[in-house]
């Protein structure tokens, strides 16, 4: 009896990895999924934070895909290790702070480690030749295989017929003929295959799944590094850049103002890590103060905070300023007018 071969599939939650995994499952291979959490994943967090997203289904797409495929899924926290990928990408960034090629190399390398540790035989990804400008080009796909250390144990079922035969093909564990020769940016072949497999519901194609591809988010991260004088971050930084209005009147401090109740509720969990303030005399948002503000700076932050509350037209409003220990004091300020806040203060 031949040995049951096992593959680990990188499951992003999008259609391509779903199809690639199904193509290998159909060949009788035991497949388990792996998903890496970098901290910059779009789904989940923001939906949970923002009230306006309350109607959206809060499912985690990678878990959902695994369930549709009937495979186990292992979600791995790589937040700390991922820092080196983001801060020192050997192959550089894309349009924003997205280190797509280094990211793919990192994830395939992690999958290879997991494969070895768990006695699996090869790795599957949903990559398609020519689909992405940085990480999924004909020239870069061999780089991913080589620099991740996966080499010919890396199988891309959707584009396999366009690529050199891998070890699982040469050994006869899987058939090249039962894989595909997709290439380019068109999604039509994937849609057709999804229909063949009976997949009627799937997440939107990947690409918009990482905050690092977002220009506004990337600019906020660069601003944070500049203000702190070092290129570093932790998970709380990553999270807080996803919420609120970020206003930096001076290099040494920034005001983060909640835009709605969901954000205020989330940000209130950070009152022990940041100074905070909110309007006491009128209804208004919670604001967190990041940096080292002077007393005058705090009064300016209070004026900005008041600008976004219901007292914005008032001559004077009362604002509660709270330190990290929870000690409170109230100050009276005149809210800034819209024109008093220069556009360049908005991060």
């Amino acid at each position, binding site marked *: 009896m031949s040995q049951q071969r096992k593959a680990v599939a990188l499951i992003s939650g999008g259609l391509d990895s779903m199809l690639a995994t199904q193509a290998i499952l159909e060949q009788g291979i035991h497949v388990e999924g792996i*998903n890496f*959490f970098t901290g910059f*994943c779009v789904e*989940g*967090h923001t*939906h*949970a*934070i923002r009230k306006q997203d309350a109607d959206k*289904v*809060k*499912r*985690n797409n*990678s*878990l*959902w895909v*695994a*369930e549709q495929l*009937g*495979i*186990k*899924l*292992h*979600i*791995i*926290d790589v937040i700390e290790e991922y820092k080196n990928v983001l801060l020192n990408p050997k192959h550089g960034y894309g349009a924003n702070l997205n280190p797509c090629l280094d990211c793919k190399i990192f994830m395939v390398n992690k999958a290879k480690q997991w494969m070895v540790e768990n006695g699996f035989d090869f790795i599957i990804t949903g990559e398609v030749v020519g689909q992405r400008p940085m990480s999924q080009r004909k020239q870069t796909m061999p780089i991913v295989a080589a620099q991740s250390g996966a080499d010919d144990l890396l199988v891309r079922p959707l584009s396999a017929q366009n690529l050199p035969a891998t070890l699982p093909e040469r050994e006869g564990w899987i058939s090249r003929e039962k894989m595909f020769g997709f290439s380019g940016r068109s999604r039509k072949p994937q849609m057709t295959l999804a229909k063949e497999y009976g997949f009627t519901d799937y997440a939107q194609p990947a690409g918009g799944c990482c905050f690092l591809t977002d220009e506004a988010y990337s600019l906020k991260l660069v601003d944070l590094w500049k203000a702190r004088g070092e290129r570093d971050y932790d998970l709380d930084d990553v*999270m807080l850049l996803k919420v609120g209005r970020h206003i930096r009147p001076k290099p040494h401090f920034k005001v983060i103002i909640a835009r709605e109740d969901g954000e205020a509720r989330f940000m209130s*969990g950070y009152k022990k890590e940041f100074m905070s303030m909110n309007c006491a005399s009128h209804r208004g948002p919670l604001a967190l103060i990041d940096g080292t503000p002077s007393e005058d700076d705090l009064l300016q932050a209070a004026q900005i905070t008041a600008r976004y509350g219901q007292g914005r037209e008032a001559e004077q409003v009362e604002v509660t300023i709270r330190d990290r220990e929870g000690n409170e004091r109230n100050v009276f300020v005149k809210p800034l007018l819209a024109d008093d806040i220069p556009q360049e203060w908005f991060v």
Partner: protein
Amino acid sequence: MSEHVLNARRLLCPLPVIRTQDKVKTLVTGDVLTVECTDPGVMQDIPAWCRINGHRVLETRADGGEYVIVLEVG
């Protein structure tokens, strides 16, 4: 069989799932784990994770901004 509690409050998905997964690795079949969370997303995600990994959800409840899932390790 033993009972365990995991505090996953303030964490947003998928971190409560990851913490649950890591805790379950240290337990044995039949152990019961109560996961306490504040992200409503766990009401979908942790049961989904249990289904695909062969664990049984015994109870889910939402109570004043807290979400609790009780599962039995499979």
